[in-house]
């Protein structure tokens, strides 16, 4: 079998680490992440960044798909209100996110799984803080069990 792990690995328990998908707008939050990196600020390696042009680009479909494909947490971040590179993308996004967040909470999805925030290009510290706190929130919730995986009945 090709799928087997190297000798002796099979029986070792691997400590679970949350996988967190961060959708970051190119102009502010991604630059904020960059600044955190340049400033050598530590933030958890659990966060996988997906760069998008603007928080307005993010469809609720992206977020639901991330959960379905096994993300334990999702964070979306854009420019602060008033600072959008495209004038108002983040304002439009905010309305969509409010509805999505409300709906997911309503059907009983654990509240700490999905986060929205604004992080500017100059907020490297804030970026690291938010990623840290989101990671801890998700870690406390444990592995995602709702909304994950396809629905084959066996």
């Amino acid at each position, binding site marked *: 079998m*090709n*799928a087997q792990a190297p000798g002796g690995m099979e029986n070792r328990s691997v400590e679970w680490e949350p996988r967190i998908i961060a959708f970051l707008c190119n102009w502010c939050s991604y630059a904020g992440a960059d600044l955190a990196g340049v400033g050598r600020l530590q933030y958890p390696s659990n966060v996988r960044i997906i760069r998008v042009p603007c928080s307005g680009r993010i469809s609720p479909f992206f977020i639901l798909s991330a959960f379905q494909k096994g993300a334990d947490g999702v964070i979306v971040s854009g420019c602060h209100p008033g600072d959008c590179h495209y004038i108002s993308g983040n304002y439009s996004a905010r309305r969509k996110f409010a509805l999505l967040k409300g709906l997911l909470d309503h059907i009983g999805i654990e509240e700490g799984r999905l986060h929205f925030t604004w992080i500017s290009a100059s907020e490297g510290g804030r970026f690291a803080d938010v990623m840290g706190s989101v990671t801890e929130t998700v870690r406390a919730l444990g592995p995602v069990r709702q909304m994950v*995986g*396809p*629905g*084959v*009945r*066996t």
Partner: protein
Amino acid sequence: MRGVNEMSAVRLGKGDVAGFLEGLLADWTVVAPVMHDGIVSFRAITSGTEADLDYSNSAQSPKGVVLPQVETLLSCPCSSPEGEDVVEHTPEPGRVVLFGVRPCDARGIGFLDRVFGEGANGDNYYASRRESLLVVSLGCSHPLATCFCTTTGGGPFSTEGSDLIMAEHGDEYIVFAVTENGATFLSRHGLSKAAESAVQAVLSAAETSVAEMQPRVGLSILKGSLDGSFDAAAWNTLTEKCVGCGVCTYVCPTCHCFDIVDEVSGGSRVRNRIWDSCQFPCFTRQASGFDPRPTYRERYRQRFMHKFSFCTDRYGTPGCVGCGRCVTECPVNLDIRRIMAFFSEKRGEE
């Protein structure tokens, strides 16, 4: 009741059904009608009391027992090269009894046998489920106004597709063996022999019940009319109210079109077979974008002609058993019986 063995008929008291099923559960998976949230559906029961035989018919047909809505055909680990370590998910359902289905649905399984069971291209997934299945049907003492089984060649006590058939008689069911498998099953379960008078009573009641359901149209007349009506302008108005959903096909006991879809899940690459519907927009859309059936009109025509013309040509029997589900469940009451009547009458006029 064609083909039943009258001599070996046994009785099963209505009050004894739960106990009888409970006894079966040790060796069998029992799939029976269950009432849940106001909807009757066929499910594998875990206790004999779950089964509810006092029902008219289930919302969905029980065809999922032999053709599940989703079933895995193949899978392999993501890490394996294409074509290696492929697992064939051939079903191993053990012994399954489909208990208390209506004769129309049993006929539906008989129809599916012709599609999946025969010829060189036999379907091993279907065959594995089918071979382990025993079908116990329940004759219809009170067919509904939406039923039209006799029109499609069946009847409220049709035995086609059944291994055993039960008929109500007061506070008991008289159970007849139809097939060898059915007879063997009966012989193993020590039910007491039915009284001769009861057997005769249900046989004559069944005959009366069949006689009361006069066929609405002649199938051969309908087919003859359809064969020349593919391009009939009438399809425009007949299908106009169709909204193009898949309800009729998904509740139907004989609709069997499927899609094959792949996904990656839990470290495996998986190939599933799922139900599809000829009413859906992507069903025949080609890679180039061309679609020979671009609107609800062509799609409805396909479903109807498939059932009453193409299946007759191909399988020697129509692809409709007259269960009436599509009549009841169509969101816009596009009644298949009216289309049948239209084309039959059209022929009559010619």
